[in-house]
């Protein structure tokens, strides 16, 4: 018996039309076709989705947790980047 592990795939499911595909988990499969079929069997058994994306996990590049402070903390005090920071003039309609 040949022992070789199938590669890991990340699974993204769109729950309904108009919503984004959302990461739901991962699974093993020999190729993309099998990964989509496996995702159907593992992650859409309870009507969770209408569309499936799979990406081989090795193609996902993640930020380094050690960079978290430098990456994300500077955004902490920049409230002016939120639209709610600005008062809308009374004469502007339909906002």
């Amino acid at each position, binding site marked *: *018996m*040949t022992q070789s592990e*199938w590669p890991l795939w990340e699974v993204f499911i769109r729950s309904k039309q108009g919503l984004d595909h959302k990461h739901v988990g991962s*699974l*093993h*499969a*020999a190729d993309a*076709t*099998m990964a989509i*079929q*496996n995702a*159907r*069997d*593992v992650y859409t*058994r309870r009507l969770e989705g209408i569309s499936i994306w799979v990406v081989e996990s090795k193609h996902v590049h993640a930020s380094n947790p050690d960079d978290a402070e430098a990456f994300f903390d500077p955004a902490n005090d920049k409230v002016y980047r939120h639209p709610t920071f600005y008062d809308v003039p009374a004469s502007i309609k339909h906002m």
Partner: protein
Amino acid sequence: MQVAPSETSALNNYVPELRQQLFHYVLQLADTSLILGHRLSEWCGHGPVLEQDLAMANIALDLLGETRSLYQYAAELEGKGGTEDDLAFLRIATEYRNPLLVEQPNGDFAATVARQFLFDNFHYHFLRELHASTDERLAAIAEKAVKEAAYHLKWTSEWLIRLGDGTEESRQRLDQALASLWRYSGELTTPTATEKALQAAGIIPDYAGLLPKMEAHLNHVFQEATVPVPQGVFMMTGGKEGRHSEHLGYILAELQYMQRTYPGMKW
């Protein structure tokens, strides 16, 4: 899977003889899904990988859903006040009408895939035609089940190709599976006297019409799998008329244990 009961008056449209034949035939369909579903459920927790374990359990549950609708209809056709459970759990082996193919042991994964492919290739093409049945109840059951069967056939076709055109070992296992299971494939499309009567009445499709579509799909899949289509094999029949292999008794012993030991037990 629940299909709303049609008007009871529709049942009375059948003359007693045809109604009896339809009863036996609906039992045949129900027994087929029950036994194959049970076989697949034996894989639960034993699949080669988690994902395929789930896939087989999913197919088993689809078949069980179809089984329930069919036994419910059969109980109504019988008209003796029995339930789906009575029909599923309280008959003896010679009263079961499933074809021999579906009671064959799971064997290895290749044997299960081969058995399932041979069945799905019939089941899917059959349900597509049954959808046009003059019997409203069967047509409704077929409409629901055909979507499930389409996925089953896709799954088994993929796996047959992977195993056939895979490694030396997978190919050898698939060859062995086909060598032992092919002889049971012909029964699916060999009509019994009951089936001929129902075909003549327009209640079920003529199998001759299914064969070209089944052959086209099978030839395509076998070609992709680089597996030659077996030729000149003597076809075993008899299951649909209650003549079974020794395997069915063992299946029923396990399947019926609870109802036989604790009669009338409910979950």
